[in-house]
């Protein structure tokens, strides 16, 4: 019923409400909805959801804390970007990358977040990340420790678990020996079939050159077990839960088995990314949470 006896924390990323935000819902409406659907964790995108980023007013910050307190919500992860192509005609220096990350870490800390996901620019068609990332992150490890924040790059399809990028992240973690760094797994890597999203307020294409995105196979959930010890956060990416409370795209029972069996007690933070249609997120998030709660209840009973 309404007690939260789950083996992990259940949260929602405001990214889920992208089609509604600014159109049918304010950021405040979205946060109210997260609480209404019974989630406890609140994930945001710094550049998306903080008014007057990077300089929110103290009134905005005060309202943030008062609202979370009233609604029983815990800030979980703050999504940030290291926009390595920000300066036309040249790359970004490691110092500039470190400054951007420091800015977001400080803001995340001020808002009470425990995790920051920097989305790092890439330098190749196979999504090798810009080499400035190591220095940019390393320079911030001390700050992250002060703030009690874990920095976690996101493993997001078409980057998969067994990949040079993940190896690079794990080598960094080993080399630095830091506990302020770990992996964020976006469950979209475990898709069992591709979802074709409809809708959206404009037609979209990537570039005029006719280049095609890489065709990368999806990942068996068994790969997850191998990196659970380094995994600090999950974005529970999903697209559609049908009218019978079935998700035909993501193997939630398998995922939850691996997650819970590994002893993970962190957050599963829902990222709705289905049809680009207003109002669909609020309904689908409720379906996904009902499904995940049902699966957790089944595990308890068996």
């Amino acid at each position: 019923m309404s007690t939260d006896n789950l083996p992990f924390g259940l949260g929602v990323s405001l990214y889920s409400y992208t089609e509604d935000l600014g159109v049918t819902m304010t950021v405040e409406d979205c946060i109210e909805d997260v609480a209404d659907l019974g989630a406890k964790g609140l994930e945001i995108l710094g550049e998306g959801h903080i008014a007057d980023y990077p300089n929110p007013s103290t009134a905005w910050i005060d309202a943030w804390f008062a609202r979370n307190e009233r609604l029983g919500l815990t800030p979980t992860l703050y999504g940030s970007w290291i926009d390595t192509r920000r300066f036309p005609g040249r790359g970004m220096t490691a110092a500039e990358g470190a400054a951007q990350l420091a800015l977001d870490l400080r803001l995340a800390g001020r808002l009470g977040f425990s995790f920051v996901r920097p989305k790092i620019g890439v330098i190749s068609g196979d999504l090798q990340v810009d080499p400035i990332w190591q220095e940019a992150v390393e320079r911030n490890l001390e700050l992250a420790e002060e703030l009690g924040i874990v920095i976690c790059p996101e493993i997001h399809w078409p980057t998969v678990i067994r990949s040079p990028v993940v190896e690079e992240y794990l080598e960094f973690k080993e080399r630095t020996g830091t506990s302020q760094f770990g992996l964020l797994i976006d469950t979209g890597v475990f898709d069992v079939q591709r979802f074709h999203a409809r809708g959206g307020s404009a037609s979209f294409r990537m570039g005029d050159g006719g280049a095609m995105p890489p065709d990368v196979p999806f990942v068996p959930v068994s790969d997850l077990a191998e990196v659970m010890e380094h995994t600090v956060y999950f974005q529970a990416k999903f697209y559609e839960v049908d009218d019978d409370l079935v998700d035909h795209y993501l193997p939630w029972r398998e995922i939850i088995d691996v997650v819970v069996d590994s002893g993970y007690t962190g957050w599963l933070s829902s990222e709705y990314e289905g049809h680009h249609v207003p109002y669909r997120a609020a309904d689908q998030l409720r379906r996904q949470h009902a499904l995940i709660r049902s699966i957790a209840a089944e595990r308890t009973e068996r």
Partner: protein
Amino acid sequence: MLEEQLIQAAGFRNVGPDAAPTGFQLRVRSPYYRGLWGSLIERPTVTVDGEEFAGDDTLWTLPTGEYTFAELQRSPDARWPMDAPAVLTVPKPGGLARGIHEVTLELRLRMSYIPEELQPSIWTATRKAVIVR
């Protein structure tokens, strides 16, 4: 709240002296899921009733200020947040006639986390918009 479609009904109007407009404006909702630094905006293309206007001459009004396209590229702190429309001012001596126009916008944003050969990200939106006065 902003209108769902990118080109807003509000804010489409002639600018300059009533007797001799110097151009027109349109108001655009960001199609992106986060706010972004202005220097990540690439040249837009605005087309009205088949007439194409080059992005170099388009003036951008964002919450952080007013920018020519060249200024936007160089700006260290211009931002286009999700919750505020950009106002694009397009030079056109005489402005647009009163009535319904077909307006198309190709909006280009540069993303760092997508392979270069797949960039920029391009959104194309078309609507009929009304010059009332």
